[in-house]
């Protein structure tokens, strides 16, 4: 609510990050995420996608540059303040859901609310509604070990969205899934994020997953390349017409 019209929800400017001896992971990366926007970040392995996501989500602080969230400099907040902010304003999902193995799906999804001080009864009630939206209410009493990868990812998404955050950071959320399970996870994520007005930063190396986003940026060697708007696509194909798929061999 604090963002004015046009101002980005989160902006990263000239981020650099170097880990020990491995060389620079980010070299002057700039990116903006608008409120309610679904932005895909693609790029080769090692190009810095996860590092960029971690910086934007306040999990890692960049060596140089700024991460601006609303009026605040995320990169200058204390560890404790960042943790608090992450709890209330952000949700995260990784390739392997990272659910707590001892807890049921429902308790996993309710956890962020409990940490934020919501009563147990209320937390479970709200978590239940989010499991329902992600189509995994039937798994509410199962533990992560008893669920398929796709179900576990949807529980992880419910957990990421349960606090109704301003932004969700998803790092390869479909990376461990086959294409149908990946499609279910992405459809659920995109629909619920749009409904709730939540912005999503989606890191993926898969073009079909990236295609769920409104926009895409590509990382190369730690810098962000804006993916050019498609040149006069309207002239090359009508929106409802697929490119003609020609038969492999020759006639007759």
């Amino acid at each position, binding site marked *: 609510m604090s963002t004015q019209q046009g101002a980005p929800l989160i902006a990263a400017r000239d981020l650099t990050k170097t880990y020990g001896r491995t060389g620079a992971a980010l070299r002057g990366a700039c990116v903006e995420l608008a409120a309610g926007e679904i932005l895909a970040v693609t790029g080769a392995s090692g190009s810095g996608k996860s590092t960029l996501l971690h910086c934007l989500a306040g999990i890692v602080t960049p060596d140089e540059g700024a991460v601006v969230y609303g009026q605040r400099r995320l990169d200058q907040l204390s560890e404790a303040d960042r943790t608090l902010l992450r709890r209330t304003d952000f949700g995260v999902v990784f390739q392997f859901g990272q659910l707590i193995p001892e807890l049921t799906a429902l308790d996993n999804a309710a956890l962020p609310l409990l940490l934020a001080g919501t009563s147990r009864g209320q937390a479970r009630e709200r978590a239940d509604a989010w499991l329902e939206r992600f189509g995994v209410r039937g798994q509410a009493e199962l533990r992560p070990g008893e669920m398929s990868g796709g179900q576990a990812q949807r529980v992880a998404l419910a957990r990421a969205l349960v606090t109704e955050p301003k932004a969700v950071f998803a790092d390869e959320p479909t990376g461990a899934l086959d294409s149908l399970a990946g499609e279910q996870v*992405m459809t659920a994520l995109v629909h619920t994020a749009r409904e709730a007005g939540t912005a999503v930063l989606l890191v993926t190396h898969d073009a*079909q997953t990236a295609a769920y986003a409104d926009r895409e940026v590509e990382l190369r060697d730690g810098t962000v390349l804006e*993916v050019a708007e498609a040149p006069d696509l309207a002239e090359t194909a009508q929106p409802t*017409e697929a*490119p003609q*798929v020609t038969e*492999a061999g020759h006639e007759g």
Partner: protein
Amino acid sequence: MSTRHVLLGLLATGPSHGYDLKRRHDARFPQARPLAYGQVYTTLQRLVRDGLAEVEGTDADGGPERTRYRATDEGARELADWLGRIAPPAPFVTNEIFAKVVVAILTATAGAPADPAAYLRDQRAAHKARMRELTAVKANPDADLATVLSADYALHHLDADLRWMTTTAGRLPALTQEIQHP
């Protein structure tokens, strides 16, 4: 694509008029180019000539007279045979993108104003934009199965093109080197 077999398949679900077949084809393949009625008509003539379909009768219902066709037993066998026959997995690469990249590299090294890297960048952007459009069509909760299937098909093919373009963009320096100094 074998329009002949697709029409034979539609006929196999029940006798039909040419116009009906066109309509049913366009509904089943919503992302494909709509069939021209002329093409339906000539295809039906050929199916009849080859004994795969036959005229069942004519209907008028007040309007112009329309010929009703049905599949023959031989047509049913031909259809089953076609459905079970694998398509040759791309024995020839005849893609326009591939041709452009090869020609662009060849001519660019000869000094012509061609920029394969820029072309690849723009073509990739166009592919990605198209993939976003198709994904939006597919992710619409009201999308019917025919729409989802055809969007999937197009998406997987565009994705394959995209991977090839990404790999090729990475190989451009080596390719150019090889053409300049064979």
